[in-house]
């Protein structure tokens, strides 16, 4: 009789306890089974009236059951305590999460970072220089004589006869070479200015990355290899490229590097003006006159230099059709990158 009751109550407990997933139910179970007036207490009461010969066995059984229930109960209670409300209710898992705002870098910065990382991986340092520059660093030391048509290549904002807003980041090359002896391997990112009417295709300023490498045995072949490696890392390894002669006062021989248009893959489109090629940078071997202005021995040292515009890359890569949008800083634009 009591024996059966013990079994029944135990199995009833084992059925109820898994459903006790909140503190209220836990408390109900405690009251029902383990409190002073609970079912276990009443069983111990009944044990007193049991036949003498059965008492030891029933008592042992009852004690075992009580221990088992107490242990199971404590485990269940602990689980509810630590998980808190987890078991309390079902929640709407489909509600949007609670966010924390994150901003973003300007697309030009992101592009520049990518370029920087590639060149740093090839052993280049990163050097900066001033935007309000002297005529000497911007032109003269770079072999742009006064009264020379080469100066027309870069429309300049002048502050006065001797100062100007730099038209390229190339003056930083001169600044590095003045300070350090070869070998020099560095890129020079920064903002440059051109005195041009603002339109969809041109702006009064843009960003550039220049690069230079000077050592005892630097050749055009190495220049080509370095820039091809850069282009493949940046634009994709399946591109075709070409170097064609060009002119910059501070390099000789000079070249422009074209890659296959990544929009039409070389078949010709509006962006590449039907040629299938996109001009991505200018480069060349450092002109001996530049070495002369920084007192390097051009018999001993040779070097290469290159420069590229950042805005143009975005125009090509993201199909941006108006350069001005970079500098409008419309949040709807900034959030896209």
């Amino acid at each position, binding site marked *: 009789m009591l024996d059966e009751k013990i079994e029944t109550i135990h199995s009833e407990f084992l059925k109820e306890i898994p459903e006790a997933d909140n503190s209220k139910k836990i408390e109900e179970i405690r009251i029902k089974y383990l409190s002073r007036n609970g079912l276990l207490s009443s069983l111990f009461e009944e044990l007193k009236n049991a036949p003498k010969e059965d008492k030891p066995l029933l008592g042992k059984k009852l004690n075992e059951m009580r221990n088992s229930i107490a242990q199971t109960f404590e485990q269940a209670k602990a689980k509810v305590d630590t998980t808190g409300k987890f078991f309390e209710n079902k929640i709407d898992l489909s*509600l*949007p999460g*609670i966010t*924390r*705002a994150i*901003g973003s*870098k*300007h697309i*030009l*910065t992101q592009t520049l970072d990518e370029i*920087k990382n590639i060149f*740093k991986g090839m052993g280049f*340092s*990163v*050097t*900066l220089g*001033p*935007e*309000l520059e002297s005529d000497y660093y911007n032109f003269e030391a770079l072999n742009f004589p006064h*009264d*020379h048509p*080469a100066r*027309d290549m870069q429309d300049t*904002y*002048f*502050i*006065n006869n*001797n100062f100007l*807003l730099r038209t390229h980041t190339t003056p930083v090359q001169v600044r590095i070479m003045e300070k350090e002896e070869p070998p020099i*391997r560095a890129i020079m*990112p920064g*903002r440059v200015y051109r*005195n041009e*009417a603002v339109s969809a295709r041109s*702006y*009064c300023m843009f960003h550039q990355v220049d690069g230079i490498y000077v050592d005892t045995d630097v*050749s*055009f*072949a*190495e220049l*080509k*290899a370095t820039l091809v490696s850069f282009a493949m890392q940046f634009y994709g390894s399946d591109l075709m490229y*070409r*170097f*064609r*002669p*060009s*002119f910059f006062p501070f390099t*000789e*021989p*000079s*070249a422009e590097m074209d890659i296959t248009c990544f929009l039409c893959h070389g078949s010709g489109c509006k962006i590449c003006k039907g040629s299938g090629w996109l001009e991505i940078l200018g480069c060349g*071997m450092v002109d*001996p006159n530049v070495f002369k202005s920084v007192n390097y021995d051009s018999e001993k040292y040779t070097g290469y230099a290159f420069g590229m515009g950042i805005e143009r890359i975005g125009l090509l890569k993201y199909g941006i059709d108006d350069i001005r949008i970079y*500098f409008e*800083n*419309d*949040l*709807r634009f*900034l959030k896209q990158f």
Partner: protein
Amino acid sequence: MKVSLNWLKEYVDLSGIPVSEIIHNLTMSGLEVEEVINQNEIYKNFVVGFVKEKIKHPNADKLSVCKISNGTEEMQVVCGAPNVEAGQKIVFAQIGAIVPNGNFKITKAKIRGTESFGMICSESELEISSNHEGIMVLSSELKEGTPISEALGLDDVLLEIAITPNRSDALSHFGVARDLSAIFDRKLKLPEINLEEYENGIKDFASVEILDPINCPRYSAKVVKDVIVKESPDWLKQAVQKIGMRPINNIVDVTNYIMYETGQPLHAFDLKMLKGNKIVVQSTTVESQFTTLDSKVRKLPANTLLICDAEKPVAVAGVMGGENSEVTSDTKNILIESAYFNPSSIRRTAKALGLSTDASYRFERTTNAGGTIYAAERAAQLIAELSGGKVAQGTIDVYPNAVKQPVVTVRFARVEKILGYYVEPEKIRKIVLALGFEITFENDEQISVRVPLFRPDVEREIDVIEEIARINGYDNIPTISSFSVPLGVKHDESSFYDKVRDTAVGLGFYEMINNPLQNEKTAALTGNQIGVLNPQSLDMAYLRTSLVPGALMVAAKNFNVGEKNLALFEIGNVFNKNSEETEIKSFSDFKEETKIIFLLSGKASLKEWHGRDKNYSFYYLKGLINSFLNNFTLDNVLNDSYYHSGNRIFDFIFAKEHDGNLIGNGGRINKEVLNYFNLQQEVFCFELDLNLLEKLSTQKSKYNPLLKYPKMMRDFAFIFDKEIEYEDVAEFIKKNGGSLLQFVRIFDLFESESLGVNKKSMAFELEYFNENRTLKDEEVEKDFNNLITLVSNKFNAKLRGN
């Protein structure tokens, strides 16, 4: 520069080479072909037409209805040109033709109720000149139905070539042909002079004197007598039109033709207008005025090189001739000028006059000092042929100081060192010869060449190496497969800015990049502005003195498009003169500093299902700036200060200082500035000097051992008078809380009527610990109770009941 392929073929045999290959090779050797115009394609469906009949349009006074024959059929065409007449041969654009000017296709049309099957074209519609006064009337000898490309010699391929400033030689068909001859290994054949000269010597008719031999090292001249000035023959007119010029007469057209052929600018004077039959080349010493042949009065600065006669100026040397001596229909005798001027002098004059002509463009890039006589003679020969004139015997050639031809030695090893590959000496030899260099010496190691005067850009060994590289093709330069990187220290001067950016982005800010050029008033708001000498507009005439105005303009733009909630930052340089009066003579007269600006406006968070919306406020700005600075371990290095006024930009001002130097400041943009930038909502900004910050943040922080003993927390709330400021209380607590008190944090602040008038409640949490031992309850309790008494007494504050 426009180049005609047919024209080039007169100087170099290009037979058997496809046009596409010619174009590709020009580009790949440094003469970049930017545009190709194939006339056969353009003038498809244009034929010679015959106007059989012309009647008035029934419904329009200014229109006529013509019957046009194309040789096989007759078509009705409505025409609006007043000069169309029956019996004319005209250019007939048939159905399907695409009119070059305007790029529209001819289709069957109904014009004022009358059907029209084509169009009669003007020269401007065909884009062969800018003449749009009526239709183009053709020679009556042309056969109806003949394709226009054939009838007008429009079967050419025209190339627009971008000539770099160093290649003055390529500003001519000779120059381009010379490159082609080198590239394709075909012989260059320039026209030979074949002059029939009149017995009277040129000295009988004219003389030349150079008073400024520095700026005019050479002046050559020919005289042609008894010319008849008239229209040029068709071939010359077409040739001139192809290169983009308007035919004028047989004299001027020849001078232009020879300029495009040889690169030597020429000028023809009416000899009768030259007083004393004399040319005097001299520079002015004072400012003067002169009327050029475009009838414009030009102001000439002092030191302008002029061509004068015995009495007066007759041309601005190298730039433009004068009205007083130009060739007119009455001209009988001409003097052809073929000179070499100092490039800088011409460039200065052209700049001063704001006038760039075909001549000045060439002179300022250095013309061929050795080619003046050839060009003069060639022009004289052609003029005589086309005008019936007689060439006076001899050539005047005043050449006081011969321009030197450099001799350059090229070491074969040096070629390899620069280019990175070995070029066969035989190949080098061939290239320099094809380009017109003369070999003066050679052995196994080197070759010396005398540089022709038409290549003024070649002076040094490296210049010749470039010539070798480009003619041999950059494609032949190998790409190496690896290079070594020395293991020296690499530096990245931008890495600090990268970290700054990453931190700002992590805090929820979007990066902007602004134009540093702004108007004077805006730039003057925040510093001593530096102006630009030659701005595009007054709106972009000064450099920014702070990043604040640019950020505020961005806020205004965003508000206008409905973006009202902003968290933005920018890293950029600002420019300040040392004082308002400073003139910039050196780098020490101004400062260029790199700063960061933060801007907050609108809502920090929107209303959401889990919470209310929150607006950006002064406290957000302060908190975010402190979070930002935390990433640079600056907590104990910088001091804060606050003001309610005293700044031109902000009214709630919050500043960060170090050792008395301002590192950054910001706050709420004041009303006046909001109005100035047309901003309709509160904006908060903070600007920090990154150069200073970078210096401070390089100090390394020290490792603190982790706390091994438990902390004890207490909290209390007091009712204070409203004027009492948080910081005074917090500082007092820190100072008087006992040695175990480590941190104080305000966690509640409110005002309510129940507290009393002008009262507020502030609640603080106190953190106690000791690095070396576990605290006892009693000691903390003692300090805490003691502190309660001190705070109550000090601030006359009432402890709120627990």
